[in-house]
């Protein structure tokens, strides 16, 4: 490998997200591997906690701002900030600037920070221009488009493009892959009956697709769908898309039989 003096590897701050941190560290490791394979240096600031969505979507602007400042201060030194979650990335990229609009001290600083924020898969394809991965996986997968990633960040083609490069993997699209899974943060516990109705339609579509595996880019959605699939006794394997792209599918899945 030639090392040029004038360029160095981009320094990426990995925003693990609280759900990955607490419930599925393997996604964090998969994300780190993908980012490193793309030619970056990965850093995981230890003081990271939460992007602030729970507070933000509950109307607690004060705590949200405090958390946003914490995140910006912790991550702004990096060239890029990458999160394996469409909703957390959208929070940092689209919503933080709303919090600081008109704020003389933070508006510009936030804008500079938010410009560097990317969701994991779209970072690989759109910033690092990765068009294929080396992973191999025999079987079929269906992909759920998480709402924030899709509608706030335009993520739809990118995961499918990289999944298409996984040797042996067939993509089986489900009906209404771009329709909400019913998670919605606190919505799923506050309005659990309605959430259940929505996720039940989603699991029916997932099953109907005939795929061996369910993938998505957001842990909230995945835990919601996996939890429902498990309760229904379904065998389909559920993983975060990063795990498949990184070729790290030997850990137990979020739900399902696993290999």
């Amino acid at each position, binding site marked *: 490998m030639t090392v040029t003096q004038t360029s160095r590897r981009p320094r990426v701050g990995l925003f693990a997200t609280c759900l990955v941190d607490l419930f*599925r560290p393997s996604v964090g490791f998969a994300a780190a591997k993908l980012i490193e394979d793309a030619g970056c240096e990965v850093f995981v600031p230890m003081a990271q906690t939460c992007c602030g969505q729970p507070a933000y979507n509950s109307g607690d602007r004060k705590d949200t701002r405090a958390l946003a400042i914490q995140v910006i201060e912790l991550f702004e030194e990096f060239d890029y900030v990458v999160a394996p979650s469409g909703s957390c990335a959208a929070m940092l990229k689209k919503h933080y600037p709303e919090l600081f609009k008109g704020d003389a001290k933070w508006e510009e600083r936030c804008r500079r920070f938010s410009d560097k924020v990317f969701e994991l898969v779209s970072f690989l394809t759109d910033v690092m221009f990765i068009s294929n991965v080396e992973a191999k996986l025999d079987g079929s997968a269906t992909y759920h488009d998480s709402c924030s990633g899709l*509608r706030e960040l335009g993520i739809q083609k990118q995961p499918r493009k990289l999944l298409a490069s996984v040797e042996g993997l067939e993509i089986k699209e489900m009906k209404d892959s771009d329709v909400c899974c019913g998670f*919605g943060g606190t919505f799923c516990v506050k309005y659990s009956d309605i959430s259940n109705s929505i996720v039940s339609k989603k699991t029916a579509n997932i099953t109907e697709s005939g795929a061996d595996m369910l993938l998505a880019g957001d842990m909230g959605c995945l835990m919601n769908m996996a939890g429902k699939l498990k309760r229904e006794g379904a065998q389909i394997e559920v993983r975060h898309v990063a795990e498949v792209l990184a070729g790290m599918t030997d850990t137990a899945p979020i739900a399902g039989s696993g290999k």
Partner: protein
Amino acid sequence: MQFTAPHFKENAVGALADVQLQKALKNVETGFIGKRALAAGALPEFDALRDRGRDIKNHTLTHLDLYLEAYEERVTAAGGHVHWAETGEDARNIILDICRKAGAKTVTKGKSMITEEINLNDFLEDHGIQPVETDLGEYIIQLRGEHPSHIIAPAVHLNKEQVEEDFRRVHTHLDPQRDLTAPESLLSEAREVLRNRYFQADVGITGANFLVAETGSSVIVTNEGNGDLTQTLGKVHVVVASIEKIVPTLEDCAQILRVLARSATGQDMSVYTTFSTGPKRPEDPDGPDEYHVVLLDNGRSSMLGSEFQDMLRCIRCGACMNHCPVYHSVGGHAYGSVYPGPMGSVLTPALFGIENSAHLPNASTFCGRCESVCPMHIPLPKMMRRWREKEFERHLSPATVRWGLGVWAFFARRPKLYRVATSAMVRMLSVLGGSRRRIGSLPLASGWTRYRDMPAPEGQTFTQQWAARKATGKAA
């Protein structure tokens, strides 16, 4: 309409268990969405027209006082009368007065959400005047004593069998043995029954999709022709419209019309788009002798200049609720407000107070589908979040939720404490999960575990493991 928004949760539970309703709601999911997509896809300029519609409405709203004055001047020049109603009560009294002066005993109505908003029908009946809904969907629900469950398809929550039952029950002058199994037969029957009512009515009341300032015209957009018969056959035509319905010019109206029907039902144009200006002219063989416009404020003027101003761009197409996963699950009546779905969740608190409609902006996953299809680019999730902020400021959210989120934020803002607390919690949950790594029930999280398993964590947090690997020099 009886306002039951505070009981949204109970309403929703009832709606989810209602088999007939769930069957009918499938028509919303499968019908409207595909049709809108086809219509939008067939017009390359569709998205550019949405932008333009938003800009036209924004310009109008920031000059609303002047356009309203210009509008009134044109209506008067054409021989019509404009009445200004600050509240729903004022509007009702004005309309009653007009009906009384016309000696009206029955009044035909074109479909009008604004008259639902001000509870006009009950008020007229209380004063001895019989309103007759002529829109087929509105007529059906009037027979049932119900209110609309959707702003453009009022009877979307009903099945054909229910309609048949109602027609048999009410149209007692017809042969009880008649065959009503085909929808066509129901339509012909309604057409026949209502045709007579048009001729009997003294006053015809319609809403307006648009009010055109340039010409003093009111515009109604229908498929049935009922609005047109309502406004042409009565001696008096009354238009009831809220102040934000104003558009400056005929061209501005034409621009927005292009996205209205396509967003609502997927038609390029609705069957009848009718511009009415003043009473009949001396040479006209038909038409009303009097033309009145009742302009209603009822809270809109307070929304101007506020963070909810964008909601006034709404053209009542219904696309938002047609695409909403929550609406698909519970239907319109569950919202307990004249305006359901995403647009209702923003507008209802603005018109009726957030303390009375606290559930509505909360019953959303913020999936954003509504905003993505709104022809006027109204940022619905953002405004629902703004209502949540107002609830939080006023301590209207349930105490447990506030407390729980407060605890989370407390720890999240203190990274060292967070690390300690979360690693303990994660260890505990993974023990609970056992060898099969699932948690079937969890105190304090019954909202989740009632319907879903909770996948158990891996035992150590990511940050812990990463730090450990770095410490031992292992590659990530």
